[in-house]
């Protein structure tokens, strides 16, 4: 099949077409030096970044000043066996920024942003339920998705949990 047969904006986008994304990535990195951001991948309307967990609040505080209509799509979490990854997916100027922070697997801890970005509240609670990521600075992290009788300290999305293991 030729390229004409397929709509593949990512493929069709040449290096020049990603100017907006590159500029945005550079602006983010220079705007929040605390986060020590490094860009891992850029494609059409997507930026993938790795950041230092200590700089998270700085990033969102600064981004909210620059882009008042910032939209936090969600926060993903992932247990990769060695570390816990927390990925913030947010939209700036119609570009989806995926900012990854890696935290200690045994004591995953990252500062909450729900006081600055109210939308983060549900996503933090969900991640706390499923992966046991602690969001510090919150007054409380009530359960969102797990049942009330679910045992504390058991996190279904962690690697050691098997799918058919029953809750206790």
């Amino acid at each position, binding site marked *: *099949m030729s*390229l004409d*047969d*397929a*709509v*593949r*904006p*990512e*493929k069709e986008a040449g290096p020049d077409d990603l100017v907006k994304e590159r500029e945005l990535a550079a602006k983010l990195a220079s705007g929040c030096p605390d986060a020590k951001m490094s860009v891992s991948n850029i494609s059409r*309307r*997507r930026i*993938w970044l790795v950041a230092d967990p200590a700089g998270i609040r700085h990033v969102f505080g600064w981004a909210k000043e620059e882009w*008042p*209509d910032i*939209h*936090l*799509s*969600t926060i*993903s*979490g*992932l247990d*990769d066996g060695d570390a816990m990854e927390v*990925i913030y*997916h947010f*939209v700036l100027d*119609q570009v*989806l920024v*995926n900012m990854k922070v890696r935290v200690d697997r045994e004591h995953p801890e990252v500062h909450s942003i729900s006081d600055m*970005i*109210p*939308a983060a*509240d*549900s*996503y933090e609670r*969900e991640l706390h*339920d*499923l992966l046991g990521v602690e969001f510090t600075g919150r007054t409380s992290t*009530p*359960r*969102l*998705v*797990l*049942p009330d009788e679910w045992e504390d300290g058991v996190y*279904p*999305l962690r690697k050691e*949990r098997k*799918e058919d293991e029953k809750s206790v």
Partner: protein
Amino acid sequence: MSELEIPIGPQHPALKEPESFRFELDGEIVRSVDIRLGYVHRGIEKACQDRTWIQCVYLIERICGICSHSHTTAFCQAAEQIAGIEVPRRALYLRSMIGEMERMHSHLLWLGLAGHEVGFDTLFMYAWRDREIILDALERLTGNRVNYGMNMIGGVRRDISSNDAEELSRALDVLEERIKYYADLALNETTFTARLNGVGKITRQQAIDLGTVGPTARSVGLKVDIRKDDPYAAYAEIPFEVVTAEGGDLMAAAQVRIGEMIQSIGIIRYILKNLPDGPVSVKAPRRIPEGEAASRYEAPRGEDFHYVRSSGGEKPERVKVRAPTLANINAVAVSMRGVRVADIPIIIAGIDPCFSCTDRMVRLEDSRAGRIETITWQELERRSRAQRDKE
């Protein structure tokens, strides 16, 4: 003065994902609401990690009974992006077509429910009767009314015949008349407007802060639509308007949804007329190479977000799904403040849930008198209707 507390749920309220609402009342006025989710948390994300990529498509189709195509499209797009699969243009057009048909049946469902919740059952019956037109068309094209099984990684599973296209086109003519009638009726009929105007209001700033999506965000004039902002499937090539309204109340949400149905008809007509030739799928590898992707889809209720990671195996490493309801539920909490008890059903219905549970209990607790009153959902609806009769 102590306040009255009403817990609604967990297994109920008008939402297809059962939730628990705890309303704090001052007389008839809602002071605050506390929301608890998760009563139908089925662990689909975890289950995906133990299924092959192909099995995942079918599992993900079943996340939602209304916007099943939304979820599979978002997931397949992510997998295709990681694997670098070029989806044939015809398949992309067909994905958009089924997506718009889904949007229409979902919005007609909402319109009917909104009518029902405010005691306008004629509208409920009309809208649901007409929803059958689009469901029949979906069944003809895909074999199913819902859970169409249309998507696969690499394209779609069924092509559309010229016969089906003609029938769909005739169905659209009928629906267009009907939807124009609804536009007039829902926006000018006082039975409806009196219960929707100014009810369930959120401000533009609240909509931004709370991360609302879809018609809920567009009802405050925010021009956000993934089909335009981050085009997928064939939307970059299809002309259509993003429908917005002002005011942020339920009336604005109704205007947005009705306007969107008109747009959907236009989109489907464009697709039928400009459907590219060629295959509808390409063969996808059994193992998706290592990588990750974030996929966004404008579902009937708003942005559906999938994050997918592959470690190069037969099964995904991680599938994360954020359905639009989770993004919109906080707006419900905000818009509930200061409303009357009688408006609770329509406001919960306002973000577009599925009314899957019919006989649910609502407990009214009067902490002052130590009185607890348990009423059924029907009773709450009856009070809602009584409110209409007063107006």
